[in-house]
């Protein structure tokens, strides 16, 4: 009988040589006369083990990682394909690895298990169960289910998804749109990418359900151009969904219509801001729009539009399958359900950790992350992307919960956790926050466009010891102006990392890192 061997196809596995390993495994099997079926599965999100090769055995899938091209021959010599475990890279049964076993995977339940492009795999693992339910519900019933779930926007703003959908449902209009924000530009985040590369049908299903809920028949996925593999996989999956009647003008014979297209961004961080994204989709410069009007009322091409992050839409199939209450049973306070946390940067065991809200940050970094990759002491953690605060050790007790983070003048954002060891110069990081804003500001409002440039200059003066106290005061004023006067979160949140460095690492901003 043919032996099933899995080699992941996501960006991280491929960036570490998975394609070459897949070719070598096939060649080696052929030369040894071993009958194998090679499956390019998604990634489990255990990135320090990638490329993580799995072999199907009677007891479950046996893992080997991180595998390099040089290991392929010895893997065969030690009969890994027969479930032998003596090879040094054997990590045992994958599902028993504590990092994976101790997670609560609702959204990422299929990631790494299935072949992302196999619709049959998707159906065999609860796929499209949510859509089947949604097809016999009214729009209002679907929206109510999402409200019950307590789901809040996972892109960073944490606005209740059900309320946004209600607004679009209630706004009259012949033409409405569902737009998926897949412009995942925050450094330290890759959960959207994993959804699109490892379980694309889940996103397609979530968007289709959103369309049924609010009465929209057209969807767009606005995908950043930095994700070529996700682009390829999404397009393939959409093609299959059309062929099999899951997209188009008669979804599953229901006479209901939903069309879906991927649109590529072009290297602009600001297009992750929803109104800038809409302008970009309309074929314009990605300039931020003033709100109101809300996109839910006047959105894409002036029509009522749901704009949701990938993770928000990816949570929908579970909610419609198991019920909103089943999702709301996870979490704490007003943060319901699970949060896919991404452990990144200088971390030993980096990867995706999906857990119910409520776990302390330091527990994530220690029990899952296992400290820094360099082995040096952890010094600062930036949570929530380039607009998030740098947190020192005194703040690491903060629990993963939107309200807990905002009470510390920090943001949970899209769930990226970037760890830095003690070699980091926090003054450099504060300067970079302003520099990044000069590069990525859309330029529409002055506090963001000019403020960030002045911010870099003022920080340089402080670091050069030029009238440091006056310039410190100036930087504080500048930050306040940006917070109060900017049109969108880019300008108003750039001061968050800067102010966190001013508060927690003031000496380093003034004098540089001391050995």
């Amino acid at each position: 009988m043919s032996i099933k061997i899995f080699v992941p196809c996501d960006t991280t596995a491929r960036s570490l040589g998975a394609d070459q390993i897949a070719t070598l495994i096939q060649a080696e099997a052929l030369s040894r006369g071993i009958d194998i079926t090679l499956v390019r599965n998604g990634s489990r999100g255990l990135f320090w083990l990638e490329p993580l090769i799995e072999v199907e055995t009677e007891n479950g899938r046996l893992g080997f990682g991180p595998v390099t091209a040089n290991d392929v021959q010895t893997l065969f010599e030690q009969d890994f394909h027969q479930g032998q475990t003596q090879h040094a890279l054997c990590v045992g049964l994958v599902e028993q690895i504590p990092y994976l076993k101790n997670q609560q995977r609702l959204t990422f339940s299929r990631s790494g298990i299935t072949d992302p492009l196999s619709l049959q795999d998707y159906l065999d693992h609860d796929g499209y169960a949510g859509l089947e339910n949604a097809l016999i519900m009214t729009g209002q019933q679907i929206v109510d289910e999402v409200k019950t779930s307590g789901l809040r926007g996972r892109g960073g703003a944490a606005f209740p998804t059900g309320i946004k959908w209600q607004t679009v449902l209630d706004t009259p209009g012949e033409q409405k749109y569902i737009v998926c924000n897949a412009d995942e530009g925050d450094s330290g985040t890759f959960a959207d990418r994993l959804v699109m590369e490892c379980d694309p049908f889940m996103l397609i299903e979530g968007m289709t359900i959103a369309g049924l809920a609010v009465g929209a028949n057209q969807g767009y996925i606005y995908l950043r151009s930095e994700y070529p593999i996700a682009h390829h996989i999404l397009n393939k999956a959409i093609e299959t969904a059309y062929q099999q009647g899951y997209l188009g003008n008669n979804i599953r014979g229901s006479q209901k219509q939903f069309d879906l297209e991927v649109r590529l961004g072009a290297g602009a961080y600001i297009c992750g801001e929803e109104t800038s994204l809409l302008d970009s989709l309309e074929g314009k410069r990605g300039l931020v729009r003033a709100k109101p009007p809300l996109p839910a009322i006047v959105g894409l091409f002036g029509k009522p539009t749901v704009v949701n992050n990938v993770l928000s839409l990816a949570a929908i199939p579970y909610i419609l399958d198991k019920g909103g209450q089943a999702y709301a049973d996870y979490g704490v306070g007003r943060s319901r359900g699970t949060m896919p946390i991404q452990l990144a940067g200088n971390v030993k065991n980096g990867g995706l950790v999906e857990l119910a809200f409520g776990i302390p940050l330091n527990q994530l970094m220690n029990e899952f992350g296992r400290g820094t990759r360099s082995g040096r002491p952890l010094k600062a953690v930036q949570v929530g992307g380039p607009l998030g605060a740098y947190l020192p050790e005194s703040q690491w007790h903060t629990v993963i919960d939107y309200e807990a983070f905002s009470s510390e003048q920090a943001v949970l954002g899209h769930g990226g956790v970037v760890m830095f060891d003690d070699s980091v110069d926090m003054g450099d990081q504060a300067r970079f926050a302003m520099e990044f804003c000069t590069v990525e500001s859309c330029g529409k409002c002055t506090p963001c466009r000019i403020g960030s440039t002045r911010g870099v200059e003022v920080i340089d003066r402080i670091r050069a010891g030029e009238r440091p106290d006056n310039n410190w005061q100036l930087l504080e004023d500048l930050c306040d102006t940006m917070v109060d006067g900017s049109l969108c979160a880019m300008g108003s949140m750039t001061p968050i990392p800067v102010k966190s460095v001013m508060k927690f690492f003031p000496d380093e901003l003034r004098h540089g890192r001391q050995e």
Partner: protein
Amino acid sequence: MITSGKWRIETVREIIQRLKSKPGALLPVLHAVQEYIGHIPDNVVPIIADEMLLTRAEVHGVISFYAHFRNHPTGKHIVEICRAEACQSVGCRQLEEHAKNTLNIDYQQTTDCGNITLEPVYCLGNCATGPSIRINDDIHGRVSPERFDELMGNCRQRLQEAG
């Protein structure tokens, strides 16, 4: 991708006509033109504007807004180095220095041999296994300076093989 002058204006028109009826078609059109020519030459701008009933200023404005679109030719290989925080925490600042020194160019420049164009990028979504770089459409993780030299060696080799 054609990076030499061997492109036909008729093909550009065909590309525009194939895509222009899409709602908000300008970005798809620009992507397709850049995919075909390798960049978006200034003399194509009036053609796009004309076909799509836009002004030249509007088309130019969109091209210049987005980092991905270029109005000048690039080298055979585009090498993008991630400059964002997660890669900073594992040494991308040193990698940047190394790349600029060994290739003897700055960002947005091309090596004398016309082989490599260096670009900054802000996140490739490979943040647990940085520093990350992208060479054309391939992303590479845990790129040490030594690994960078190896990868650049491969680029040079491929150029030589291509003659």
